[in-house]
């Protein structure tokens, strides 16, 4: 089971202030930009949703293919957004539909 995830903290003006890529999957060359694109695009939804709910953790707010984006919104509207992807190696492919 390989995973890939990217965690970015975004300040109020959509400026990324921290960026970390984690996960066990072998890193693709364009992984960094792909994550940035996905997370950047998710900001639209966060901005809509953050003001309509009192919850700070917005789970699975957006998805792109099999990447799921979740957001933690702080009181100061700093966003900690994270996308996560789990995929099985084709060889093993055990538990799953």
């Amino acid at each position, binding site marked *: 089971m390989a995973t890939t995830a990217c965690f970015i903290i975004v300040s109020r003006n*959509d*400026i*990324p202030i921290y960026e970390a890529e984690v996960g066990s999957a072998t890193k693709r*060359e*364009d992984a*960094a*930009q792909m*994550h*940035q*694109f*996905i997370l*950047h*695009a*998710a*900001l*639209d*939804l966060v901005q*809509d949703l953050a003001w309509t709910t009192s919850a700070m953790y917005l789970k699975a707010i957006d998805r792109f293919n099999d990447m799921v984006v979740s957001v933690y919104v702080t009181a100061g509207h700093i966003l900690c957004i994270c996308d996560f992807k789990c995929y099985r190696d084709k060889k093993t492919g055990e538990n799953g539909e």
Partner: protein
Amino acid sequence: MDPAKTPLGKMLLEEITPVVMVLRTPLVEESCLKNSLSFIEMLTPFCNFHNIDVPVRTSSDQPYRLQKFNLRLFYESDIKQPNLEVAKERLKQVITEAGERDSSELCTDLPDISNVLASSKSEISPFWFEFFNKELVRTVSFSEHEAFDHPVACLLVVSSKDEQPINKFVDLFNTNKLPSLLNDGEMDPKILKHYVLVHDNQDGPSEKYGCLHFLVMATKILAEMKNTFGSNGCDLLCINSSQVEQIEHQDNPWAPYIKDLIQELTSKHIIPYMEQKVRVLNQQVSATRKGFRNQIKNLWWRKGKEDIPDSSNGPMYTYSSIESQIRVLGDYAFMLGDYELALSNYRLISTDYKIDKAWKRYAGVQEMMGLTYFMLDQSRKEAEYCMENAFNTYLKLGSSGQQNATRCGLWWIEMLKTRDQYKEAATVYFRICSEELLHSAVMLEQASYCYLLSQPPMLHKYGFHLVLSGDRYKKCDQIKHAIRTYRSAVSVYKGTPWSYIKDHVHFHIGQWYGFLGMYDVAVTHMLEVLACSHQSKTTQELFLRDFLQIVQKAGKTFEVLSLQLPVINISSLKVFFEDHRTYASPGSTSVRESVWRSLEEDMVPSLPSTRTNWLELQSNLLPKRYKELNICVAGEAIKIAIDFKNPLEIPISISSVSLICELSAISDETKYGAYYFNADVDASCSTAGLCNDEECNNLREIIADTSSFSFSEVNISLGGGETNLVQLTVTPKVEGILKIVGIRWKLSGSVIGFFSFGSNTVKKQVATGRRKVKHSPGNDLKFIVIKSLPKLEGSIRALPEKAYAGHLQHLVLELKNQSEFSVKNLKMKTSHPRFLNIGNQEDLNVEFPACLEKKTNVTAHANPKKISHGVFLFPEDFSVQGENPLFWPLWFRAAVPGNISLQVVIYYEMGDLSSDMRYRTLRMHYNLQVLPSLDVSFKISPCPSRLQEFLVRMDVVNKTNSESIQVNQLSTIGSQWEISLLQPIDTIFPSESLIAGQAFSCFFMLKSCRKSSSTEENTSSLSPRIGSSVSLVPDGSKEAPFDISSSPLADFHDCERLQHRISDQEAENTVDFILISRPLKSNIEPGISDAYHVFSHHACHCRQECANFTASTSPISWVVHGPQTRHHDFSTSYCEINLRMTIYNSSNALASIDIKTLGTTSIGDPSSDATAATSGNQVGWHDVSLSNDVKIAPDALRTHVRKSLSSESVSPFIWSGSSSTRVQLKPLSSTEIPLQICVFSPGTYDLSNYVLNWNLQPVNGHKNVGDRIQSSGTISGYPNYLTVLPSD
């Protein structure tokens, strides 16, 4: 809003309409092609009725009028599912054409996102999307699972030229030519037939007669047709009736005929036919399916069919099956606008198909239900649910349902768009992206526009989907489309701090522009990604390589304002220039200005404002503003140092780095100045990009004008992540105002970058080298260039960087003046006179170190140096001019170990009084490391037996690492001291030199030979340095002692004394030593010194440590002389012993001294013990170094002896003779008093039980004596042991 008027409504009214199958003979087509039209093309324009106004009655009894109606005409060969590949090819062509058409836009400026948002909906998405979507919908027409594409009627067309037209009509409707739909039993083959005879008027002979004849023939055929097929279903259509020659036509000459034909066909045949069919089918359906009983029956019957094996399409339904009939009923009702009826039938059939697992049909029905709900404008939720259901069901079918899903999705999207649910529409677009790249590229692009149109606009998603779409376009080689989408994306991502996104977008669009050969635009985008320090090394290489390739292909040199490679750190900007302050070396500028100021304080003429006052001449001419400007001198370089940083991991090469400067004459500066200040403001808001704006032209102009100054060019190469300090100079040649505008450089030999200081300094502080920013920083880069002036250049030759402490060296100061004008009134000051002493002119050519040696004829200084406040004034006739350098001797001595920053300032005035500056200063700075060498310490203790003589112990430790040092000579300073060795040197110091780490002690006898003189005291610091010296070199050496009384040793010694200045009172009775040593030549470390070296070590104000009986506390000192042991035969008599006491008065006053001998009883008296304890005698006992050496401290163990004595010595002794003696002593004189004791028994006696009372009587003219020294006091005797032994 009327659903029929929405885009989707219009689309449905156009697309879901009755199909008319057209069967024609080749001759018909031939006739039509004369007009370059096919038969269908000829008829189609007349098939759209906006206001047909036909009454329709379907299931209900109430008729309604149908207004809008369309017919779709197809040849029989086209009534089949289109070939997917062909359809794809056609779509691709559509896209390519659209791309070509749009290509003109690619060169225009980037759209601004705010403009995009402001533009109307129709402007946002390209026009061809609609067309594309329509084409896409049509790829799935004529499916067997839905009935609205099934032909409602059949138009049989035969030309009048055809032979046996009636037979032709029959032949046309021949089953083997008919589409499979009819043949396979999918639809009822018994459809409405309409027969048309086409008559071409141009056929036949050209004469009118013949023409008429043929027309008659056609009419005849028509009559025959009417007989055969019935009178209603036959028509005659005459075409090409106008003559060939006839040019002018009516607007639509044949329209009325065709229009009438079609209208009649529609209103009189097709619509009634459909009405009729709807009614019939409705009755059938009602009979079999409606009602509770039928439903139960149906359910039961369906269940029974469950054993039928599942196929993807479910069971086969023929046209006669009730399911097909319901579907046909629904579709006809829909086409006739009876949506209620359609919906009820769709609902009915939907459950059936679901139970039968006929998924495709089920999806098709669901789709129609959704559309019907929409047309009814009720239950939006239901409509959407149906559409989604249909969409998902189609998708579940896999590839066979893909096209249908697309169509369904497009309709669904239109439905959502109608309701302004753009966000949802966008997700649907995303979902209909198929495997096929081109298709999904278009869909993603449409999705992005939906995000843009949603409220509020979702720009992040807009950009993302544009990028996704662009990537797919690129993969399909649709570069122009790819660029178009990325261009829009750039407008979203412009200036984003999301670095990877920005890099991706700009890099790719740049690359694609490069493919298209639009290199200028390509370079603009590529420039954005150059500073990609966050990327991996390979990516950086890729970016840079592609960038350079494009630049190379462009074949010209680009000029770029604010090129990002390398990064220029404006805060590192340092400006070095010389006004009246000049610098000997670059290092001099690193010293703080305050240090220089304090040095120059005494030399520079004091002026109210040092900065502008020497500009008095111009101050009237110049506007006030210029007073704030810096001054520089024509012909003298201004240096700029700035950091160039390579942000990448790969090396880059920078060439031709130079300054951009501008020099204007003072008179026109006023107007220029205003212009430039404006330019600065402009520059600050200009953005990165190619150099094509006004400012850049401006810069180019400035660069071109280089006649009035010269500047340096530097080439550097920066490794990965490296920062280089680049030093640039500009030398103005003429007077005026010089402004340093910026820097230019060439990246990899192909791109010229500009960096304007003005534009950036507005935000950032400029740190000038030597000056705090007090005013606007722009002014710091502006200089008033004044007329060329003399400038002294100075250097100190051979000043060592490293030296051992005490190192003495002869140096030469070299001064040069390149200009033709002379300078005068030179002054000089050093920051550390201990280290650097200014010599006499005649010292210039002396031989060192021979000059240090004592000369036979010692003369007074012929030319005493002019030094006031440490400022050395050069002789007045001393001027420097022209090529010949002038020299002045300097003496250097490394005074103390450590790191020393040595500053020398030379002040000079201009010989030419008319020049703008009256004086300048030359600042020299040297850094010096002084290593420890010999550590010398002196200890002085009084000689126990002699007055005014002292024992001096000198401890020397060699603290160098490797050097061997020979100790040469020890001298005392001042005439009142004489020093001599206690023992010959070769006995105590045979090895002659000290190796590293070795310590050495040596004893000397120091004799005070001060003569009475009151003047000496006051001038002790400047007393003639006639000292006495001891050579420490063994006799074999013939070296003459060094002369410590002449320069430079004496000068340095004065400095040392000043350094350790103490009060005059304390200075009295102290002694200064100078130790001269030389490193052994064989052992000299390379780099530190050369052959002739002399170290001098100065110890000032040494004093004796035990202050018990010398003049330091009391002016009276004495010594008791007498035997120490005596043999006496006590059997005969008691023993008489004579003693002599020598008393010395070291004060300048007359002293009267009273000596009292005490009785024996006082011995062991606790009070005397206490006095002894408090008298200060004990201080010396605890000195550790002394206690080690019993030899020179004979009284060290006194306490023990004394204690033992006090208990043991029972046999007393008595002082014989007078018990009190009074003497008068003149100043600085001594006298001797005889004393006698009588001892009665053998033993050891302490002869200390006497007291001296002294009293000073001031001599004439010395009233202040009492103030300085105690005027009277009592001293008890010091221990003096006498052992008397019985003689045998």
